């Protein structure tokens, strides 16, 4: 199963990839901004996309809508380092399925993957 990680922090992307690989998900692509994320999504068609809510220039909500316009069946998990209830509601309203608090960990990530990878 392909997974896309979108975050402008290279360190966080590496951490996510490390956790995903440890959880048995080796087919991971990454992107640092909106444009690269859309390009990577169209090219790879990942089943799950982990999307940071705050990206350079555009928001995670914008990206969520853009990804779902390409593939309405895509599973998007919003991420943020703070819990802003309005931002989370906006993401869910835009079509994101779930939310992960950054920096995430094996327990929370495994729960999300188990829930949404079927």
């Amino acid at each position, binding site marked *: 199963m392909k997974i896309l990680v979108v975050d402008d922090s290279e*360190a966080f992307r590496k951490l996510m990839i490390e956790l995903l690989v440890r959880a048995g998900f080796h087919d991971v692509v990454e992107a640092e901004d909106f444009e690269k994320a859309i390009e990577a999504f169209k090219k790879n068609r990942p089943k799950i996309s982990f999307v940071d809510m705050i990206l350079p220039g555009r928001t995670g909500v914008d990206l969520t809508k853009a990804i779902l316009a390409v593939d309405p069946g895509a599973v998007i998990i919003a991420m943020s*380092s*703070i*819990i*802003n*209830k309005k931002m*989370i*509601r906006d993401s*869910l309203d835009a079509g994101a399925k*779930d*939310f*992960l*608090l950054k*920096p*995430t*960990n094996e*327990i*929370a990530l495994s*729960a*999300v993957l188990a*829930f949404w990878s079927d």
Partner: protein
Amino acid sequence: MGLFSRKSKVGKPDAESGLGITRKYSLLQGRTYVVEESPSDISFDAFVNIVSTTVNGSKKTVGLAVSRQHPDLIKQKYGLEATPIYWLATRTGDDVVAPTNLGILTHMLIKFVEENPSGVILLDGLEYLVSNNDFNKVLRVIDQVSDHISQSKSVLIIPVDPRAFTPKELALLERNVEKIVGSRRTS
């Protein structure tokens, strides 16, 4: 009036508004969890996730947090609006618990468990408590609260930085509790 009744008033906990997201942590009721980590990311994430979500339409879980971090910072970062948060500090104030006042801390936590038998407690700042008290006294607090937890459906989460304790102290802390080994972030 009881010995601690005036000072150890626990703020009335209320359920957080649901976030509409899934429950990520399946912690067993009536258990105490020691989470080996620094900083306390897993513990806070678990605590916030539990008070902000429900499972299969169950009743919302109310929480109580005690931390060395200032309550305003915690509320801001984790979006907590209804959960009482107490600051472990030597300042005075309504939401402050002095680190040397272990009696009041114990009473406050036990009172919360008695009044909220399915609640969740986050006890962050164990290192600060130990630096202000004899280790065995702090251990006694945890044992007393854990005893009440095990007779309820509540959950107690205690983040612990293993570097701050001797192997013997760590072993004593982790007796009769569930252990979660997290990571140590350096950046």
